[in-house]
């Protein structure tokens, strides 16, 4: 936890405390007694929250606690069943997000809300309240370039959003809100896909903006380091109820964690057992090329081996070809040249090959890439196994009963929070979708597991669970390829680390305590 200490700045604390005395008079934004039901499930029960001008407020809670629901009610995306939103002391009816925008309340959503086929430029311009009838793109581009020059974040303006990596999309979302100049800014897990440096830069910048302009920021996050380093006050939700609130300076991380989960023990991350790596690799890539050479996101990998019983971590800033690598291994793309071997056999990522060679995959944005949102949790959990019976023989008719009991078992084993196994998977909270997919991919025997950003958006309990699962899989002899933009995660979990830059593997070193993050960071940025 040294990072936290480094970020901790006592001078700032005093200043923020002073601010509170003066700001106590009237909060900028107040949510009073918000309640929201989905069917007969209460996602939010009489929750109140006040934001002072210029403050940085953290909203904490486990996956599914109701954080996103709360802010969506404030933003007019959902209509609360009870409760009011008060802005500047005046009660406001916010019918839709556009009303919120007009009042100066902006939000960065957890699930991206950019239009995929439109360019960054078009998305930014269209998010304004006062889009002119006829858009002068030249002038807009000039204005935006000027705006971007003042920002610490950079995004390519003319790339359609669906070509951007998750990290770049997130940056675009944040830039969008800054561009709109919101008075109240709600950030729903904005840093999950940013590198630690980027996250610090963005939050530091937002914090400065809040201080200078009196903007209020509500930050939903699962990272305590961000709370202690940047936030003034914190509100904690547990199962739709406000479990606590306080000033960050008065609370320890343990206090906040206790408020979040109540009395419960966390999964113990198992020790790395000594494994005997086989003599031949489980996964081998030879001279693999994909995508137009030297364009964004293309890859050119000379050699990449993953042996049984080890975790190979692929580090890199998003947009350097990691997405394409995972797409190749999960069958979303075919390589233009080179060979992909699993256990010595050519691997085309078809369902048959994946089943035969026991390859499993946890892609990023699992709701989009690994689930069918409108199908039930139980159906989604059965995607790998619905056509096999308990002994692995092919069956022709679905065994609904077994699917359901399997689903119940997995839901319990991986603590997936859902209203029932038959609820559509799209109604699960972000983190629970992740757990459900991991539950599906890790059942049965797995020889090769490809995991892309597996802890994206998970609460600390779930992160511990999932890391434990990955290590356990490794200890069982599974070869794990871990692609992650979270360098800390890579360092903590990997036996070997490779750095990807512009589609090539530019650096390799040992993981764990021996890894030097400054050196790795340098290679990630392209100067190694």
């Amino acid at each position, binding site marked *: 936890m040294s990072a936290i200490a480094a970020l901790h700045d006592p001078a700032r604390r005093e200043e923020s405390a002073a601010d509170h005395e003066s700001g106590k008079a009237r909060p900028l934004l107040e949510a009073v007694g918000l309640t929201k039901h989905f069917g007969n499930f209460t996602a939010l029960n009489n929750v109140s929250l006040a934001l002072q001008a210029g403050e940085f407020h953290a909203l904490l809670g486990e996956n599914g606690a109701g954080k996103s629901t709360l802010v969506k009610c404030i933003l007019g995306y959902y209509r609360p069943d009870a409760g009011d939103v008060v802005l500047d002391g005046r009660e406001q009816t916010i019918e*839709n997000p556009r009303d919120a925008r007009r009042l100066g309340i902006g939000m960065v959503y957890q699930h991206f*809300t*950019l*239009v995929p086929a439109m360019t960054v430029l078009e998305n930014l311009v269209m998010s304004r309240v006062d889009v002119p009838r006829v*858009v002068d793109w030249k002038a807009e581009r000039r204005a935006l370039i000027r705006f971007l020059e003042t920002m610490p974040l950079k995004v390519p303006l003319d790339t359609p959003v669906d070509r951007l990596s998750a990290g770049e999309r997130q940056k675009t979302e944040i830039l969008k809100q800054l561009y709109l100049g919101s008075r109240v800014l709600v950030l729903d897990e904005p840093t999950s896909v940013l590198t630690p440096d980027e996250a610090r830069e963005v939050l530091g910048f937002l914090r400065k903006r809040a201080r200078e302009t009196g903007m209020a920021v509500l930050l939903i996050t699962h990272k305590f380091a961000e709370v202690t380093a940047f936030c003034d006050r914190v509100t904690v939700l547990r199962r739709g109820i406000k479990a606590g609130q306080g000033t960050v300076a008065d609370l320890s991380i343990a206090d906040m964690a206790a408020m979040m989960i109540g009395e419960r023990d966390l999964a113990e991350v198992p020790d790395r057992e000594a494994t005997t790596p086989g003599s031949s690799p489980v996964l081998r890539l030879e001279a693999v090329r994909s995508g137009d050479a030297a364009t964004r996101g293309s890859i050119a990998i000379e050699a990449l081996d993953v042996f049984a019983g080890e975790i190979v971590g692929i580090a890199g800033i998003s947009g350097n070809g990691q997405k394409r690598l995972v797409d190749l291994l999960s069958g979303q793309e075919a390589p233009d040249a080179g060979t992909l071997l699993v256990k010595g056999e050519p691997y085309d990522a078809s369902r048959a090959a994946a089943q035969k060679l026991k390859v499993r995959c946890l892609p990023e944005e699992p709701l989009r890439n690994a689930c069918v949102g409108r199908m039930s949790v139980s159906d989604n959990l059965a995607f790998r196994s619905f056509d096999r019976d308990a002994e692995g023989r092919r069956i022709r008719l679905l065994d609904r009963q077994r699917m359901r009991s399997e689903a119940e078992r997995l839901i319990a084993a991986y603590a997936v929070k859902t209203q029932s196994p038959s609820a559509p998977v799209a109604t699960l909270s972000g983190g629970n979708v992740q757990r459900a997919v991991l539950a599906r991919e890790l059942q049965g025997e797995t020889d090769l597991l490809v995991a892309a950003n597996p802890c994206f958006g998970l609460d600390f309990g779930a992160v511990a669970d999932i890391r434990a699962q990955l290590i356990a899989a490794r200890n069982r002899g599974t070869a794990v390829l871990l692609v992650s933009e979270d360098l800390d995660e890579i360092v903590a979990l990997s036996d070997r680390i490779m750095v990807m830059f512009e589609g090539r593997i530019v650096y390799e070193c040992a993981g764990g305590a021996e890894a030097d993050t400054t050196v790795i960071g340098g290679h990630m940025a392209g100067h190694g």
Partner: protein
Amino acid sequence: MTTDLGIWAVPLAVLGGALRVSTPFLFVSLGECVTEKSGRINLGLEGTLVFGAMAGYGGSLLTGSPWLGVLIAGLAGVLFGLMHGAVCSLPRVNDIAVGIAMMLLGTGVAFFFGKPLIQPAAPMLPAISFGGWSDVPQLRAALEVSPLFLIGILVAVLLAFMFKRTRLGLIIRMVGDSADAARAMGYPILPVRIGATAFGGFMAGVAGAYLSLYYPGSWNEHISSGQGLIAVALVIFARWNPIACFGAALLFGGAGALGPALQSVGVTSGYYLFYAAPYILTLVILFFTSSRNRALDGAPRELSITK
């Protein structure tokens, strides 16, 4: 009075055909392009087209002005569009099923009301001649163009401009591409879709009036040979680009004229095969332009067929 042109008669006829036959394709596909861009498919346009043909013909007959007939056809199309748009806005209603129902409804109602219109002769739309400089009569005939064709080109250009440069166009694209994003940015979804479907209905109605008031220029129950349906496919073929819709409509019109043209120069065997030219051409072009990597590039993601 005709000059013998030999084999040159064929390309001339194809050109003339392209200019004449393409107009209904152009109008329906432009309208459908807007509808699909907003995230809905309206297969009912075939019915709207037939109803528009009847309404246009009747309107021209009653008012004595073919242009009023066109307007009436367009407004009738708007009604059909609004109906489709509104029904599809109900929860759990599938736009394709509603479209098929509306197709049958439109043709049925048109035949019902159109019975008395088969005999009388309504005033026709005028033509503009671009062939005055030539003294080859066939060329002059080929260059007789309906003002609606020119209006169609103008609409295609305007729509392309709209999708690129105007707020309205961008909102339509947004609603068709990501309803979530549009909602998050606070743009209304259903009104935009209903409006876009109404516009598609208007264009299909006008296309119908073109059929009955210009070419072939009469009202009967065989007025349409499926233009309304084919135009829906043309939109996909043109990858939701209005200018490409124009190109596709021309290509289709020209290919459609190939069969009659060959027949007119005395090719008597196998010309039926050439009647299939537009469809074969479509398949061939689709085959050669398809690519695994950009199969649905440009496709609005909210469409029920791409979702």
